[in-house]
């Protein structure tokens, strides 16, 4: 479900990830709540996936909503590269 070049944001609780999803959907941003990829350790097991083209809009919206991810990854060549 995560294509090369996609971003994956992790949050530290189910409530945070659901709040983030609501915040992003309210703005009509094309994101998807997905099971966190197995390669990434998370407490709540969920993540938000978005395309590189939406990165600025998504991350601005999360910052404004006060739900910034605890970790942020980009998928490159089948690997998850941590960028935050």
């Amino acid at each position, binding site marked *: *479900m995560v294509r090369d070049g996609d971003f994956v944001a992790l949050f530290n609780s*189910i409530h945070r990830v*659901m709040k983030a999803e609501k915040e992003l959907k309210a703005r009509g941003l094309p994101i*998807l*709540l*997905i*099971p966190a990829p*197995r390669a990434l350790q998370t407490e709540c*097991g*969920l993540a938000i996936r978005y395309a590189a083209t939406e990165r600025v809009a998504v991350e601005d919206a999360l910052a404004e909503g006060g739900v910034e991810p605890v970790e942020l990854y980009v998928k490159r060549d089948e690997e998850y590269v941590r960028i935050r």
Partner: protein
Amino acid sequence: MKTIDCRNMACPLPVVTVKRALAEAAGEPLEVLLDEGAPRENVSRFATNRGFLVQERSTEQGPVLLISGNPLAAEQPTAKREGATVILIGSDRMGDGPEELGRLLLKNFIITLLDLAATPDRLLFVNSGVFLTTEGSEVLEALEKLGNRGTEVLSCGICLDYFQRKDKLRAGAVTNMFTIAESMLQAGSAVRI
């Protein structure tokens, strides 16, 4: 040897058609005419994953796959799967509790199926479960991927009608109660969500 024409079919119909034809062929080789690109790749991957030998040749009509071998014969007796795995999804949420959490859990269940080594043979969507196969569902991408791996996605016609979503079906096909009942009773493993 039987030949089937799967050209001009929308995904995941080529895989679904080949899956049925292989079951009917009962070990006989099968020749499949396909469109170039995703249909050819999906059918080839599906057959290879199921243990068939896939040989490809190009013709003027497009690529042709020759699928042969009987994967059941190669399996160890202990590894033999008895019948199909069928999952009945009878709601648009998983478990009792807050609606929001239930929807999220079901969505994640479906996406997680993609990570399993053995994907289910059939997913049956009934009652409000049809909201997952129709317009606006967030699992359409996952259902298409499952379809390309050979999972049949079927939605209850009565339910689509009740919710007035017949013209909004975006994954799999419409089915009836006969097929639903038969699938459940004939399945090697039937799971209700």
